[in-house]
């Protein structure tokens, strides 16, 4: 049951002459919520972008669902892209399409479902992320930041992906919406059996949702595993971030 869905080996990332990652190794198991944590500028988002093939790695390898993304063929890459959903920090909804059209787009492109069927699916996704159906025809410029995130999540879920990538899902949300978002993520994991990979800074959401986490500091992974005993790890970032605030 607990298969490995993502395995990173010796990832090295270099920008110009600045080394961002120097030999990262970690594994993400099926069905867990996995966090990528670390101080700002340590390259969490970069790592996420590398996993979803938006950025090339300098050396090393990342296997996603058994395929090495550095050497993947176009066909396999397209295949893989249909098995994941990505939620960007600000939603990244297509501004020329309404919310419903945004969610429907991958369905129109990749499936030959009837329009009626697609409408039903769109309705369900809008409902499951907690948006109102009356918002479906609004355009991204007409909705709030929190709604954009929910709509982005609905779009990421449109194809019923196996993997869900979230880039700071609760940042910029008020505390109540943030907690709602957390419980939404937990609910989705439960309902749909998703594996969720998220980058986050939100301590509450980290404790509430994550099963395991990898902590990046100083170009390396300094900790990988469950958060239960994390406060005992001797690392400056971990101590300031988790140390005293641990409830």
């Amino acid at each position, binding site marked *: 049951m607990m298969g490995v869905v993502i395995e990173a080996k010796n990832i090295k990332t270099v920008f110009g002459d600045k080394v961002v990652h120097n030999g990262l190794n970690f594994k993400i198991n099926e069905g867990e919520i996995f966090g990528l944590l670390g101080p700002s500028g340590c390259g969490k988002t970069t790592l996420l*972008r590398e996993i*979803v*093939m*938006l950025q090339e790695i300098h050396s090393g390898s990342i296997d996603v669902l058994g395929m090495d993304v550095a050497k993947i063929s176009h066909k396999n*890459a*397209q295949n893989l*892209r*249909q098995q*994941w959903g*990505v939620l*960007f*920090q*600000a939603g*990244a*909804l*297509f*501004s020329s399409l309404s919310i419903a059209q945004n969610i429907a*787009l*991958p369905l129109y*492109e*990749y499936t030959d479902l009837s329009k009626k069927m697609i409408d039903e699916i769109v309705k369900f996704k809008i409902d499951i992320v907690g948006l109102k159906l009356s918002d479906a025809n609004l355009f991204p410029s007409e909705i709030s930041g929190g709604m954009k995130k929910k709509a*982005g999540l609905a*779009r990421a879920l449109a194809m019923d992906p196996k993997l869900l*990538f979230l880039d700071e899902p609760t940042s910029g949300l008020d505390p109540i919406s943030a907690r709602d978002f957390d419980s939404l993520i937990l609910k989705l994991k439960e309902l749909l059996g998703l594996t969720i990979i998220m980058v986050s800074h939100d301590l509450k959401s980290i404790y509430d949702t994550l099963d395991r986490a990898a902590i990046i500091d100083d170009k390396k992974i300094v900790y990988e595993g469950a958060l239960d005993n994390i406060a005992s790890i001797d690392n400056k970032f971990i101590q300031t971030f988790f140390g005293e605030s641990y409830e």
Partner: protein
Amino acid sequence: MNNSYLKIEESNDELFIIFYGKFDLYLVSTYQKQIDSIKRQNLKTVNLDLSNLDFLDTAGAIFLNTLQNDLLSQSKKVKIISENKIILDTLELTQHTKNINLDTFKTENFMGKIGKNFILNYKSFLSFIEFFGLIFVAFLKYIFFPKTIRFREIFFEINESAIKAFFIISITSFLIGLVVAYQSAYQLKLYGANIFVVDMLGISILRELSPLITAIVIAGRSGSAYTAQIGAMKITQELDAMKTMGFDPFAFLVLPRIIALMIMMPILIFLSDMMAILGGMIIANVDLAITTELFLNRFNEVIDIKHFYIGIIKGPFFAFLIASIGIYRGLKVKDDTQSIGFNTTKSVVESIFAVIICDAVFSIALTNLGI
């Protein structure tokens, strides 16, 4: 209130600099002058007496540290007299940052700058070539998998960037025809060569003016719009979102725009031809007493059809340059708002320049071919 001052006492080879009150940013230059005016040759020891100082800010501390290093390098002894912990801490803090190696702040020499600029330009040239490669590959995909052609986007762009430009192109061309005819009418009248206005207008408008006017209007209107649209999509991460969903931006955004413009440019040039000739015809009628019938007969006689074709043929080439430069600039937009403005300006300037170069190449090639 101001009781901050400096007292300098000299005894034999020892110097006492005593600071009173506070020492902050605003006093640095005054103190500097006072201290610089001391003759230092015979001194062996300098005592910086801070015990009467109540407040030292970081600028003052940096000044003191620099002074200390200066004196040490002149092999004088320096003593700092103070028991105030805050002041000593401030001194230590600024000392600490001084020890950090400032490699990153190194100013470059002239050759370094030239080299860096060269590499930068070389890289942007390479990325432009890469962009053309990607367009070519996307084009091949369209040809081999016609099902993937985005007809809806192409028609949308045809409407957006060409059909909506009909009015402005008509007006501009009409006025250009009017002006050219009006200016030449005056000269031609002098020689009684009125009828030659038809030859002149026909060749210049069909061959050169219409394609250029159309290209310039479209570069300013649609090329810049492409840059701004795609640039904004890049900033809001829409392009990234498309990529992660497996939608190739070249198939979805780039090619539809290029193809739409390449289809429509000849039509726009044809429109421009008609409107410019119409403008010329009106002036010929009013100013040179050439009736419409006479104008059209003469036009038919002297203007070869090849001139019209040459003008039309230029259309797709100009369109390709304008659309691809506009989109390339859009993709170059970085994550800040200034970058959109910068790249939009560049896109218009570069595409008009490219169009003129392309026109010159056509001119030389066709003349040498005897067409």
